[in-house]
């Protein structure tokens, strides 16, 4: 039986070039479905990758209890002092805890190519003593760090590429004051979409006395997180939540990712249905045009099973080819494409589309499933062709 199946399948596949017209319908149909599916999910993968990269393993972020984002959070100077005094924190050479009290101020910048409007971006005021030590992966790629005490800004690389007026040497006017951009940094994570300034200067410029969050690093001993968290929650003067830095950033675009997930699901389902109809059409036509050939094979002793398998294989091969083309299109057109969306912090998060191996596998799986469904009924018809009438077919 397997020899028979192999023989018929080989004949079928070799004859595809003679009927490109209809075969191409399956290929293109699936290329479309898989390309759209992969492109949409490459967006969520990109966002996820950007945010997952944010956060050192031992870093924790402290926000006011119940705040979902730094923008909504507020901590007073006393709160920050209490947090810095908690046990379990890593200390620098001078014995000071590695903790950076930070604020987020939202400011507007024009995207490249825009002349009006403007999109929200985060301006983060950081403690120059500790903020860089807490994020050792952050590197300056142009210019220098800001000088504490001066109205100087450094900008994330992604932000610098996507927005106007965010390259070294340029100035930024906010709230009646002028900032000079002195450097560009790269961190490969969510901070790449931010502007950074000295916390003291940011507080005085924007008329703030408090902080949005405290980022700190645990000393790495077992139970340090527990000790730190217990200390903060048992202090009646504090009302705060402790999260790991990576969990916090991961939660920042959950809504966006869920929405895109639903859209991708619905769109893929409907397009997939359409592709199944098209595949059925093509395979029925293929079976009909070969009716006499199939009947001849049956007459000289080939069984129905191998005929069925051969039609299924043909449908699968075409569908798989379509899926592969779709993946390739999505990869060539979208992989690495950089866009931005709104995070829960109400500011732009710049990210790039990312085609992951998992995504490629899922795209190809869709192609195979559609190919199976689209091939099965025509295959069944082929296997059941009444030999005598089919032999007389013109």
């Amino acid at each position, binding site marked *: 039986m397997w020899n028979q199946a192999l023989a018929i399948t080989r004949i079928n596949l070799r004859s595809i070039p003679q009927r490109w*017209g*209809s075969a*191409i*319908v399956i290929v*293109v*149909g699936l290329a*479309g*479905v898989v*390309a*759209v599916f992969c*492109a*949409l999910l490459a967006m969520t993968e990109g966002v996820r990758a950007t945010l997952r990269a944010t956060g050192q393993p031992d870093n924790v972020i402290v926000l*006011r209890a*119940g*705040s*979902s984002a730094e*923008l*909504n959070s*507020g901590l007073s100077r006393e709160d920050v002092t209490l947090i810095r005094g908690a046990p379990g924190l890593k200390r620098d050479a001078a014995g000071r805890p590695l903790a950076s009290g930070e604020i987020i*101020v*939202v*400011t*507007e910048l024009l995207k490249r190519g825009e002349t*009006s*409007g*403007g*999109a*929200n971006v985060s301006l983060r005021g950081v403690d120059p003593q500790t903020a860089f030590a807490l994020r050792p992966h952050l590197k300056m790629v142009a210019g220098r760090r800001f000088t504490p005490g001066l109205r100087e800004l450094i900008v994330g690389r992604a932000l610098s590429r996507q927005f106007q007026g965010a390259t070294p040497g340029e100035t930024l006017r*906010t*709230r*009646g004051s002028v900032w000079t951009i002195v450097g560009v940094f790269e961190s490969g994570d969510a901070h790449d979409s931010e502007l950074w300034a000295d916390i003291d200067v940011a507080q005085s410029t*924007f*008329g703030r006395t408090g902080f949005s969050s405290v980022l700190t690093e645990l000393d790495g001993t077992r139970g340090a997180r527990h000790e730190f968290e217990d200390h903060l929650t048992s202090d009646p003067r504090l*009302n705060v939540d402790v999260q790991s830095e990576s969990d916090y950033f991961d939660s920042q675009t959950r809504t966006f990712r869920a929405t895109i997930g639903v859209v991708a699901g*619905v*769109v893929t389902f*409907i*397009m997939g*249905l*359409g*592709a199944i*109809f*098209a595949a*059925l*059409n*093509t395979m*029925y*036509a293929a079976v009909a045009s070969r009716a006499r050939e199939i009947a001849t094979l049956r007459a000289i002793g080939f069984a129905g099973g191998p005929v069925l398998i051969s039609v299924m294989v043909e449908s699968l091969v075409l569908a798989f080819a379509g899926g592969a083309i779709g993946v390739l299109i999505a990869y060539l057109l979208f992989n690495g494409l950089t*866009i*931005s*969306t*709104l995070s829960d912090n*109400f500011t*732009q998060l710049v990210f790039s589309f990312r085609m992951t191996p998992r995504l490629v596998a899922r795209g190809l799986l869709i192609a195979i499933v559609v190919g199976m469904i689209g091939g099965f009924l025509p295959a069944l018809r082929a296997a059941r062709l009444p030999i005598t009438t089919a032999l007389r077919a013109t």
Partner: protein
Amino acid sequence: MTRVGFVLANLFRRKTRGTLTLLSVVSAFLLFGLLQAVHVLFNAGVDFVGAARIVTQARVSFTSSLPLRLLPEIAAIPGVSQVMHETWFGGVWQTNTPLTTFATVPEQLHAVYPEWVMPEAQWRAFAATRTGIIVGRQVAAQFGWKVGQKIPLASNIYPRRDGSKAWAFDLVGIFDGKDDNWQRQTTQEFINYGYFDEENQFGRGNVNIYVEKLSPSADPAAVARTIDARFENSADETKTQTERAFNVGFVKQIGDIGLIVRWILSAVFFTLLLVVGNTMAQSVRERIPELAVLKTLGFTDASVLGFVIAEAAAFCLIGGLIGLGLATGVGALVERKLGGFLPIQVDVGVWATGIAAMLAMSLAVGILPALRAKRLNIVDALAGR
């Protein structure tokens, strides 16, 4: 047999093929209808704000606050007839349902937004009840809220003075929109600024944005420039734009939804072009002798061309109308289930675009097979050459 009957009969002479082709068209237009509706939804807050209103925000961004003391200064600027202010409350219903809640002054809201329709008694109750809240029809329907009910809301921004985040409001009114477009926006809630400002833990006398209603003769751009010039180089620099531009900017921040929709739809229609085009080509190829007979009987080249195009159009129109019909149904279902959160409506505009797409599609898939049928040479075709 009439010509229409002839076309329809040919459509299903191969039942499986006809049906499958039709189903592909149906699924394509189902998707078209839904995506187009989503696209319209995101632009909805944008297109219908016809009233002459402008919005003033802090120049830094609308998340920064402006002091309340700007109000009389803005009100005094020529061309401004009414001013209101709004502050984003960050309302959260139960554990995790974010609501669009603003703190504002009832009388100002009533004067600046005549589009919100509510009985006068309820407007008066809103003004008189410090802990009052009014909610849009869609929100009320979604959660089954009734006037007189106590509404517990959390704020993810503002704790109360005692440090708790649990606020509670008395539902004193439910507002409607003056027309369908405005009704679709009744997903908001308004609370009393006086109570909010006194009860929240942070700074007093700050607001997020001012909305100015202009007198009919005023030029919005000129008034906006005057307002911004008034506060230039102060600690509270402003950025004023039309309400429409403000809304466009807001939607655009989420991402270019129009672009994504266009990408998907072009992939869908390119595929569809091939599917239907292939079916038409096959069907004409198989019927060459028949078409030759038609011509022999005296049908002109032009009418044979017409038959083939009509067949293509029948596929696209029948499938397309069914698809859009389904999309309308699905949209209505989603709207009923999810209420205000995804009020997609496959409306007249979507249908009009859809029908235009169907006609363009008919021509695109029909033209090549039709030309082939038109150019048939009777003798060759009958001889099967």
